[in-house]
């Protein structure tokens, strides 16, 4: 117990060299003071003193004024890796680090000269193995009655370990500082401010780095010691204060992206905030991600725009990886086939619903994709499978996209619905066929007219007149059909067209009356020719063969026996020469009397009355489909 007490005393006193220490360890009887020889430790020394000296936790050494190790305890020997005998053969100068030697010698000199009685020094020694030993050294001196230096007492405390820890700490601190000084991220440390009930009511800044000053637009001077809610009240409204409070109370790290309004300018910046508990407070890093966020938003907007364009074009558009996997498909292409995105995205293009109606088509698409993947631009007409297993013809394209070194990175498949075009094509073909039919029919008709006319007329002159008159009549019907609705003609116009070549100088010699009635193409042709024959007959033999006769044309519509609407036309000639029935029926008469029943299923009734020709025609209205 006594030993323990003494050790403790040494450790404690070693630093300060109080009188008690001197009493215990530096027992140098003043009678021996002039005796410079050493060691003073003899058999007569106090057993307690010896014990403490040998077992002290600190090193204790007696050193000559020249620096020789006179006597050392075990600890000193351990400290430097020498045996006591080895060490006592050396001076302290021999094992002192050169950088610390001068300071040490200067201090020693001052002691020798009596200007000081001791000194403290943190210095480096070399261990026997060569490494540095850091020692906290306290030196005191013993003088004789005349004040002459007899020897020095050194207490050595090995602080190498502490020094290493300190050094590591310093390095870490330096690194931390360098990081905080140069980091683009703001960094701040705040401690909690609590009320009487230990409730956190605010936080106070302890630290802020330069980037933190930039982001908060405050100087370090403004912030350190200031209260968070007082300086930046928006922290409460944005929920940041509560978030920080929770970090301190729970110890859980918190991260969030906040659109933070700057107090001065009102400009909003995006911050990624990360807060972690530190003691009774928190550390927070502020990353300004405004640019990143803007870019992200621009990208999203741009993507939205592109998607909106793709979804609103008429064409079917998609995106393929070079191996044929479908990455994208626009809405029209999905709607056309009645499928969902998830039905096709990620599938091989040729396995998708558009093509799987026919293995040959799938093989063709597969082949086209592999050629496009090799850089070829493909384009051909093909059909896709639409809703309800319909076939939609499309103008199909595969456009490869290349990177800087010419590799195909993507393939853009697109298709335009060419149903309309195909329809127009077939309509054109039909029209051409129809036209050819009509032309041939017309030629056949001309041939027939020529043939009849030749049969009847005896002179070339008469033939020319009849023949061209009949051709004109057909042409007039044709014009009328083209000029009106193409497939129908007003009966009044028809009459006018056919009689006008013969009556124009005497317009009052024809009277027309009747409601507006529209005739279909067949009726127009057939009845137009009849009107022409009636008119030429009137000019040759009837009401228009003299200067005074007139023709009265009237028409009406009535309900026929079969329930269909019938048209009734009356042609009456008055004021012409006396009429007698013809001896021989010419082509004109046959046409007038028979063509209606033949072509239209109508009837003609001709009466050769003495006062003038009476002709009555009845024919059903055509179905105008």
């Amino acid at each position, binding site marked *: 117990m006594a030993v323990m007490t003494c050790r403790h005393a040494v450790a404690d006193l070693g630093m300060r060299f109080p009188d008690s220490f001197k009493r215990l360890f530096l027992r140098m009887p003043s009678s021996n003071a002039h005796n410079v020889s050493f060691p003073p430790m003899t058999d007569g020394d106090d057993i307690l003193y010896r014990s403490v000296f040998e077992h002290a936790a600190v090193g204790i050494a007696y050193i000559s004024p020249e620096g020789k190790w006179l006597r050392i305890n075990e600890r000193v020997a351990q400290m430097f890796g020498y045996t006591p005998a080895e060490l006592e053969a050396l001076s302290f100068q021999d094992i002192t680090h050169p950088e610390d030697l001068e300071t040490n010698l200067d201090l020693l000199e001052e002691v020798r000269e009596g200007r000081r009685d001791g000194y403290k020094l943190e210095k480096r020694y070399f261990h026997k193995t060569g490494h540095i030993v850091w020692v906290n050294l306290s030196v005191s001196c013993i003088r004789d009655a005349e004040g002459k230096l007899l020897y020095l007492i050194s207490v050595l405390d090995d602080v190498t370990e502490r020094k290493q820890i300190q050094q590591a700490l310093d390095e870490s601190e330096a690194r931390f500082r360098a990081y905080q000084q140069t980091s683009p991220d703001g960094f701040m440390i705040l401690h909690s401010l609590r009320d009487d009930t230990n409730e956190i009511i605010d936080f106070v800044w302890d630290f802020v780095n330069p980037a933190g000053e930039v982001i908060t637009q405050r100087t370090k001077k403004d912030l350190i010691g200031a209260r968070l809610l007082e300086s930046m009240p928006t922290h409460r409204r944005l929920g940041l204060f509560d978030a920080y409070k929770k970090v301190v109370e729970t110890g859980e790290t918190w991260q969030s992206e906040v659109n933070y309004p700057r107090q001065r300018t009102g400009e909003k910046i995006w911050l990624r905030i990360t807060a972690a508990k530190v003691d009774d407070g928190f550390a927070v890093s502020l990353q300004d991600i405004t640019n990143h966020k803007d870019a992200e938003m621009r990208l999203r907007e741009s993507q939205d725009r592109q998607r909106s364009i793709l979804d609103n074009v008429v064409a079917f558009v998609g995106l393929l990886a070079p191996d044929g996997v479908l990455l994208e498909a626009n809405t029209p292409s999905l709607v056309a086939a009645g499928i969902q995105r998830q039905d096709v995205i990620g599938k091989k293009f040729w396995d998708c619903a558009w093509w799987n109606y026919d293995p040959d088509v799938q093989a063709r698409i597969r082949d086209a994709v592999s050629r496009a993947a090799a850089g070829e631009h493909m384009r051909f007409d093909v059909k896709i499978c639409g809703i309800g297993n319909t076939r939609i013809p499309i103008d199909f394209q595969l456009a490869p996209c290349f990177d800087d070194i010419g590799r195909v990175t993507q393939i853009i498949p697109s298709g335009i619905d060419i149903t309309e075009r195909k329809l127009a094509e077939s309509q054109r073909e039909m029209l051409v*066929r*129809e036209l*050819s*039919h*009509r032309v*041939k*029919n017309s*030629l*056949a*008709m*001309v*041939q*027939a*007219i020529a*043939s*009849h006319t030749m*049969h009847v007329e005896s002179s070339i002159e008469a033939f020319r007149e009849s023949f061209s008159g009949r051709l004109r009549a057909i042409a007039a019907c044709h014009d009328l059909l083209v000029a009106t609705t193409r497939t129908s003609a007003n009966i009044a116009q028809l009459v006018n067209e056919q009689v006008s070549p013969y009556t124009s100088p005497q317009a009052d010699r024809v009277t027309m009356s009747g409601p507006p009635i529209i005739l279909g193409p*067949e009726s127009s042709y*057939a009845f137009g*020719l009849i009107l022409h024959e009636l008119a030429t007959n009137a000019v040759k033999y009837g009401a228009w063969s003299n200067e005074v006769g007139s023709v009265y044309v009237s028409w009406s519509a009535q309900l026929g026996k079969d329930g269909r609407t019938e048209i009734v036309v009356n042609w009456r000639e008055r004021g012409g020469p006396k009429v007698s029935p013809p001896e021989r029926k010419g*082509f004109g008469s*046959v*046409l007038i009397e*028979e*063509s209606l029943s*033949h*072509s239209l*299923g109508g009837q003609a009734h001709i009466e050769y009355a003495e006062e003038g020709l009476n002709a009555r025609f009845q024919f059903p209205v055509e179905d105008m489909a």
Partner: protein
Amino acid sequence: MKRSVLVVEDDFLIAYDLKTQMEGEGYDVSGPVGSVEAALKALEAHDICSAVLDIDLHGTASFPVAEALKEKGIPFMFLSGNCAWQLPREFSDVLVHGKPVSVPKLLGELNDLCEPDCC
């Protein structure tokens, strides 16, 4: 006895011309008629030994008449302004005469159709 021919042609002018020319060659012409119904009626009413049949009668194909003729074993030929109507397979061996018609040629062919002892 005259050889009798049924002429089925919707256009009166052409029909009448055929009739006139055929009659000039000594044929007895039934019709001309311009519709399927009139033709079928004429077939019932007259003994004929051949027929000339316009394929297109106001937009209606005359194939029912052709079928009736075939059934009766009466030889016939088609007249056509164009190739809009696809001839049914059963009539693929029937002669088709394009318009405008060469009447002497048509009559020659018609003559070949008729069996010598036909009428």
